[in-house]
């Protein structure tokens, strides 16, 4: 039967998918995929700092990613550079600095591949607690800010005019993005976290007629991707992150056929 580590990975992956489902929908609706990438790349710096200072990885990644998000907001206010250039600047420089720092940490045996692409062997019981408790908090906060966040996603001025405080919701959502990256980094790896956010949600968009349905399908898609991905990771001895994302891609491709069918039915 399954080894213990596999059950742990499965439980961790399910926890991650439950949270990336709804957050991923907002990433698509608000066009934040590249922003998610930037936060994820900066996570490497967080991980190295955690190792240097003997600090909790998730907490360290959360702090660094939040700082990068705040830096981005400040840079947007103070420079005339376009948003995507600033995102690229922060993403690649924080990734580069992280890799340079790793170079100095010769005293620690580092599994870079595991860091970049996820490693199911690395998931501990402690990580499970972080994922499930952290994930529950993220979902709770998302539920609380759902109304203003969703309303301002549809139309900022309507939300503002009718007293929903969209700026506060947006700021909180940014922090939630940093948090999901922090808790899912061990499972999916920092290069592929944005894929976990976007691909199941994109698949859900193809088959949904309402925002609620899209969230539900996105969660289901994420769960299926994790389960399929982890089993094949065990079977073919591949990294967990790429296996999960490949499974998500397969689901996305299937959802495209579903679209074609409905279009045909309409005609």
């Amino acid at each position, binding site marked *: 039967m399954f080894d213990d580590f596999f059950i742990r990975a499965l439980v961790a992956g399910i926890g991650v998918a439950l949270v990336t489902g709804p957050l991923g929908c907002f990433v698509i609706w608000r066009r934040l995929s590249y922003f998610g990438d930037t936060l994820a790349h900066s996570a490497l710096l967080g991980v190295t700092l955690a190792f240097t200072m003997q600090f909790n990885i998730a907490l360290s990644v959360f702090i660094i990613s939040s700082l990068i998000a705040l830096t981005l907001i400040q840079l947007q206010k103070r420079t005339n550079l376009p948003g995507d250039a600033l995102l690229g600047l922060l993403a690649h420089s924080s990734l580069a600095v992280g890799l340079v720092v790793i170079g100095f940490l010769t005293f620690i045996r580092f599994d870079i591949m595991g860091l970049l692409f996820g490693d199911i062997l690395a998931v501990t019981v402690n990580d499970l607690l972080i994922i499930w408790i952290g994930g529950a908090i993220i979902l709770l906060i998302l539920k609380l800010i759902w109304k203003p966040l969703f309303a301002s*996603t549809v139309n900022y*001025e*309507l939300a503002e*005019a*009718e007293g929903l405080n969209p700026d506060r919701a947006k700021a909180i959502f940014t922090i939630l993005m940093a948090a999901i990256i922090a808790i899912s980094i061990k499972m999916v790896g920092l290069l592929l976290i944005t894929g976990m956010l976007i691909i199941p949600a994109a698949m859900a*968009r193809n088959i949904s007629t*309402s925002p609620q349905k899209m969230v539900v399908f996105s969660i289901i898609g994420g769960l299926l991707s994790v389960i399929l991905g982890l089993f094949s990771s065990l079977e073919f001895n591949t990294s967990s992150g790429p296996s999960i994302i490949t499974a998500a891609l397969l689901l996305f491709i299937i959802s495209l056929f579903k679209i074609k069918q409905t279009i045909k039915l309409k005609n």
Partner: protein
Amino acid sequence: MSRDKMSVNQNILVKLKDAGFKINGKWLVQGVSLQVEKGKIVTLIGPNGSGKSTTAKIALGIYKKIEGAVEKFTNKVGYVPQKISIDWTLPLRVNDFMVLTENLRSETIDEALSLAGVIHLKDKNLGDLSGGEFQRVLLARAISKKPDLLVLDEPVQGVDFTGEIALYKLIKKISDELNCGILLISHDLHTVMSATDHVVCLNGHVCCSGSPTDVVKNVEYKALFGDQASQVLSRYEHKHDHVHTDEGKIKKN
């Protein structure tokens, strides 16, 4: 007019005092003072670029870095913006759109959609609506939450002629039934003049304001809209004390 006395009036919903807003050093509108009271319809008129929508956004609190002061005495606001761009990455039906800013009971939603004549579109995707249909849905959404203050920025644009009259009647009816205050932006002078309590004529600043009868007599108003427009009610000559520069500012004689 004794504005100081009115400021203690309990019926005031929103009040602008010498309000203005500039973007990149250019004033969009300046020195606007007006107030909307319960059960009253205040209409903003003026040519394109005269700052009508800007004034509405100042009143709504969308623009924050403003000159002057704005006081809002209610949080129950319904807003129909002039332009609305909705991203179609969102799968959104009319029904989802109705509960965007407030959760409503199903009967309340149906009632508002029926009033605006679009109940049959309830389960349609927002992206599949025509311009006029969407405009009706916007209006239905704004009235469904039974707001204290309704801000309607060109609420009947794109609506067919008969629908336009019906919707204006509906707006008047809502104002009477809910006893809410309405800030209406319109360039349809005929409608404006018949249903409004107070007209504010804008051209980068307040040109003239008052009851519809007062405003049509004003020479400023005539200068802006031409002689024909003043015949909406009556004709009256009046000596004017200032002329406009191209930017809509006052040029002293």
